[in-house]
């Protein structure tokens, strides 16, 4: 491995500074006793206190977490089932067709997903709010779970299944004691990404959320539209800590399983 020269090092440093500057800028001013994001007056925790005193905000945070956990759990279940279904497909053409269908939601712009789900929910009469947001989050997280689980399944040696069956295992045993343990790392990675997809989503939620219900992204959007509020800064400080913890968690799983580090939705 050759050493980097001065200029390349400078370039990388500048890229890193630009990537992190906005985030630290937000967190820095979350401790500002002044009102805005320009003059730092005095150090204070008051904006963090404000976050915890704001009942509405707390409820929104809880909503966001509940939606994320539920949608990750359900989409992982359906996604694993889907991956198994694709894996057991014999017909190659059919398999490729299903895979392309699976990937459509992953490349579709959020606006399209949001708009089309809005039409769908209005047509079948799902009330906009918690249910519609939860269902959409499940729907757009399923494909990533499938993508994460499939490679693990194809890595698995099929003679493992045959051996288990020969040794008298029932189909249920094969599933719970051979297949599922083997693909567990893929399932975890899928769950994790589903969680972050849900936490990060703005556009789809924005379309399908009704008046009474809001998630953090949507709430930050409406707060930001009215101008600067240091409560958002304090919130971002807290979110940053949680995010870093999540990333480290994902990285730990990732190292064990050598899964490709897939990105997060915009």
């Amino acid at each position, binding site marked *: *491995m050759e050493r*980097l020269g001065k200029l*390349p090092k400078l370039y*990388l440093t500048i*890229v*890193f500074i*630009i*990537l992190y500057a*906005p*985030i630290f*800028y*937000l967190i820095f001013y979350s401790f500002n006793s002044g009102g*805005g*994001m*320009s003059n730092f007056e005095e150090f204070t925790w008051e904006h963090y206190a404000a976050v915890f005193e704001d009942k509405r905000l707390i409820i929104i945070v809880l909503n966001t977490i509940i939606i994320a956990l539920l949608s990750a759990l359900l989409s992982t279940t359906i996604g694993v*089932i*889907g991956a*198994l*279904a694709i894996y*057991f*497909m*014999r017909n190659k053409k059919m398999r490729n067709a299903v895979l392309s*269908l*699976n990937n459509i*939601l*992953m*490349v*579709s*712009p*959020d*606006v*399209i997903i949001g*708009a*089309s*789900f809005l*039409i*769908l929910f209005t047509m079948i009469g799902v009330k906009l709010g918690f249910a519609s947001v939860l269902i959409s989050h499940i*729907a757009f997280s*399923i494909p990533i779970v499938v993508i994460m689980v499939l490679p693990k399944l194809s890595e698995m040696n099929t003679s493992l299944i045959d051996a288990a069956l020969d040794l008298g295992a029932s*189909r249920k045993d*094969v599933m719970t004691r051979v297949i599922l343990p083997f693909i567990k790392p893929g399932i975890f990675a899928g769950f994790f990404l589903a969680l972050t997809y849900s936490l990060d989503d*703005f*556009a789809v939620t*924005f379309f399908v959320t009704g008046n009474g219900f809001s998630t953090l*992204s949507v709430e*930050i*959007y409406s707060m*930001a*539209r009215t101008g600067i509020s240091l409560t958002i800064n304090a919130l971002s400080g807290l*979110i*940053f800590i949680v*995010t*870093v913890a999540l*990333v480290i968690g994902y*990285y730990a799983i990732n190292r064990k399983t050598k899964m*490709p*580090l*897939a*990105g*997060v939705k915009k």
Partner: protein
Amino acid sequence: MNKSRLRSIYSIPYTAWILLFVLAPIALIVYYSFFDLAGNFTLANYRNFFTSVYLKLTISSFWYAFLITFFSLLIAYPTAYLLTKTKHKHLWLLLIIIPSWINLLLKTYAFIGLMGLYGPLNAFLEAVGIGKQQILFTDFSFVFVSVYIFIPFMILPIFNALDKLNPALIDASRDLGADSWTTFRRVIWPLTTNGVKSGIQVVFIPALSLFMITRLIAGNKIITLGTAIEQQFLVTQNWGMGSTIAVFLIVFMFIIMLVTKGKEKGASDNGKAR
């Protein structure tokens, strides 16, 4: 025998998902694009789309998406290349990825402060003697913030492609007398185009459909296809016209996917980033 039994049991919920949330929504979008505000069947939406207003909008949306993709690539390629040369490259890559996990809204919100009239950027401009500038609500701010948001997604596939590149090929090229530039142009670049293509795909399509950044950073001055769809659906409540624009966006999406589709044998194999 066992396998086919397993198949039929397991496919039910997943198949239902495909029918209900992949196929039905697209069909509904196409269906709605044929109706006007009053609910009558019409082709007027399509006629409308080909008027100068919407054509201009489409062209400018493509232009911005092109600019955003171009600058992202310009910054991301060298970054990815240098990252593969660092000692703990996967750790550094992770550090590049972390900002992309921070909520998009928060990062955008940070730029409202950073680029504001009294923000640090303007303080800097004043200090160097250029003086205060209106940075927010300009084309520059829009492109800058979008590039900022998309850079990690561009770096990731390029990094993966570069990482898989066999270093012996570079040595061979150098041994055979090629200088660095020739090596890059004839060896490195051709072998990483698949990574670049996936990078372009994951940046260009979302860039066409941005709507939150246009509202917060560009102050409604820039209208992309995404902004137009959002406006038709949520503000004007004209679902027919919104669906028509969405139909075209879907068509553009498929064209871009075809153009940027990598060849199977290439060096890139990336997890898709949204």
